[in-house]
């Protein structure tokens, strides 16, 4: 695989076809953490440790304060206890319904956007001009299959993980009855290694198969199950090539995130140094440094969207290369 060409061309597509940014932003808005299929590039905060305070310092409060707090607490408790049960049921059902609707809608929008994005990239490669209208129609045509691809395999995988974990616990309990210490440790280590490798391997394989499955749904108009099956076969056949692309994408995402953090850290250090020299200089430099930070925060969705377009373009071009290889009957020595 010519990764250099794929990355260069992906960047060209990302740079020139700005209409794709809209679909990229849609996908980025509903993508969680960093994985092979995108969603990376962001440098998240929130790393603060959660600290539980000690017992409330009631002894330090004035007497009246505790009285008022007590009165307020008791009136709140009174309101809560006086509220009929059906009110809580209605409220609970409403919140659950709202969460359910939100999950469904986000799943729909994300998969519609992904479908539209992949189709538009293929359109560019086929010398057609992409548009919001044509991309949207293509996205709508594949959205149900995409949802199936993203929900069912992971659901099955989670069930399998739970079952295997239960099995692992069972084995651990059985091994405790083995008298030989060496045999006991060896069995435990062996079981743990199998469990960990299976977990990582299956996660990786499924991720890659789903990425290929998405492309196959669009390119060959396959059903979700058929695309997943074919995706598995192709992942098996071109595992190293596909994994290579995944590692490169992961690396680019990480590098982008690290660069952002480094840039922010550099700006912070510069401001601190300026403050130690002169307060005025510190304020001026602080104001200047705030501009790129604010811009990044405000346009973070746009930046993540652009990255998403690049990421999807790399996978799309890789699949096109695999298609070409399959068509030519050349399998690179396989």
């Amino acid at each position, binding site marked *: 695989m010519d990764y250099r060409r794929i990355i260069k061309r992906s960047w060209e597509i990302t740079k020139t076809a*700005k*209409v794709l940014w809209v679909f990229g932003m849609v996908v980025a808005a509903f993508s969680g953490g960093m994985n092979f299929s995108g969603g990376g590039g962001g440098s998240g905060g929130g790393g603060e440790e959660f600290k539980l305070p000690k017992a409330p310092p009631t002894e330090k409060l004035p007497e009246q304060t505790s009285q008022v707090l007590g009165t*307020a607490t008791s009136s709140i408790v009174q*309101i809560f206890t006086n509220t009929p049960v059906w009110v809580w049921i209605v409220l609970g059902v409403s919140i659950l319904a709202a969460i359910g609707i939100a999950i469904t809608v986000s799943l729909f929008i994300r998969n*519609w956007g992904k479908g539209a994005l992949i189709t538009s990239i293929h359109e560019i490669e086929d010398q057609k001009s992409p*548009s919001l209208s044509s991309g*949207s129609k293509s996205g709508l045509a594949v959205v149900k299959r995409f949802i199936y691809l993203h929900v069912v395999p992971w659901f099955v995988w989670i069930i399998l993980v739970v079952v295997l974990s239960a099995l692992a616990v069972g084995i651990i309990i059985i091994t405790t009855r083995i008298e030989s210490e060496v045999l006991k440790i060896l069995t435990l280590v062996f079981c743990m290694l199998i469990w960990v490798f299976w977990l990582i391997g299956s996660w990786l394989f499924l991720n890659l198969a789903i990425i290929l499955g998405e492309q196959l749904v669009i390119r060959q108009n396959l059903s979700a199950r058929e695309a997943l099956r074919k995706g598995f076969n192709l992942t098996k056949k071109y595992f190293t090539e596909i994994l290579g692309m995944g590692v490169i994408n992961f690396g680019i995402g990480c590098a982008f995130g690290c660069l952002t953090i480094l840039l922010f850290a550099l700006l912070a250090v510069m401001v601190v140094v300026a403050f130690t020299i002169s307060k005025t200089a510190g304020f001026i430099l602080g104001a200047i440094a705030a501009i790129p930070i604010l811009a990044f925060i405000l346009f973070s969705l746009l930046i993540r969207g652009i990255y998403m377009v690049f990421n999807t373009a790399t996978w799309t071009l890789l699949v096109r290369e695999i298609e070409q290889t399959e068509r030519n009957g050349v399998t690179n020595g396989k």
Partner: protein
Amino acid sequence: MENKLQPASTPSTTNLQMEKSGAAPTPSGGTPSRGGLCPAGFWIRLLAYTIDFLLMLCVILVSVWFILIDKPNLETLLPKIGVLFYCMIFILPTLEFLINKVLFTIKFGGSIGKLACGIKVVDEDGNLLKFWQAIFRYVVGYFVSGMLFGLGFLWILRDPQRQGWHDQVSGTYVVRKNRNHLLIGICLFFLLMLANVMLTAKTVQSIKQNMALQDDVQSLVEMIKGSLLEKDQTPATIEPQEAPNII
């Protein structure tokens, strides 16, 4: 390959679409029409949206006023406020979306605001939207248009077909069916503005005249203020405690 973000329909494809739908392109080469109807511009659509918003605000203010009209004290007011919040968060937006947006659009071509301004939403063939098309336009389309500081809505200003991103992704057009209705829209806008101002004034007046409620709030505030302040007027603060690191 197109180098910039472009509208879904270039003038040539628009004319092709219009040939299909039987509509004639404008001879001057200006903004083309759909089914003989001119596309609605940004400002009239903003007016329609504002009317819908003011209508919702009116409903909320009427509810608040009705709650306060009986001059309730704090104890009787709190459960009513709870119900009002529940309605404002769950019931009202759902009803507004399903009735004013979706139902009115598929039956009459637009929300109350749009109808008042004489504009309607149609599909590529000039027909009224179907149920799922309307849902898609108002859920997915509005999300797409609003996700980058509402740039997708502002796109109406520069698009030759006056399509926002939400129109482009859902394949819809907003057209003017009756130019005279603009006046009705403007009148309704001012009427609703007036109604909202009056309702706000009435609500504030109701609160001012409700001595029981004022006394309850006053005594509560006094009680908290009096207990939080020491004799020497220094506020009683809770010292931050050393916390064990549990994670």
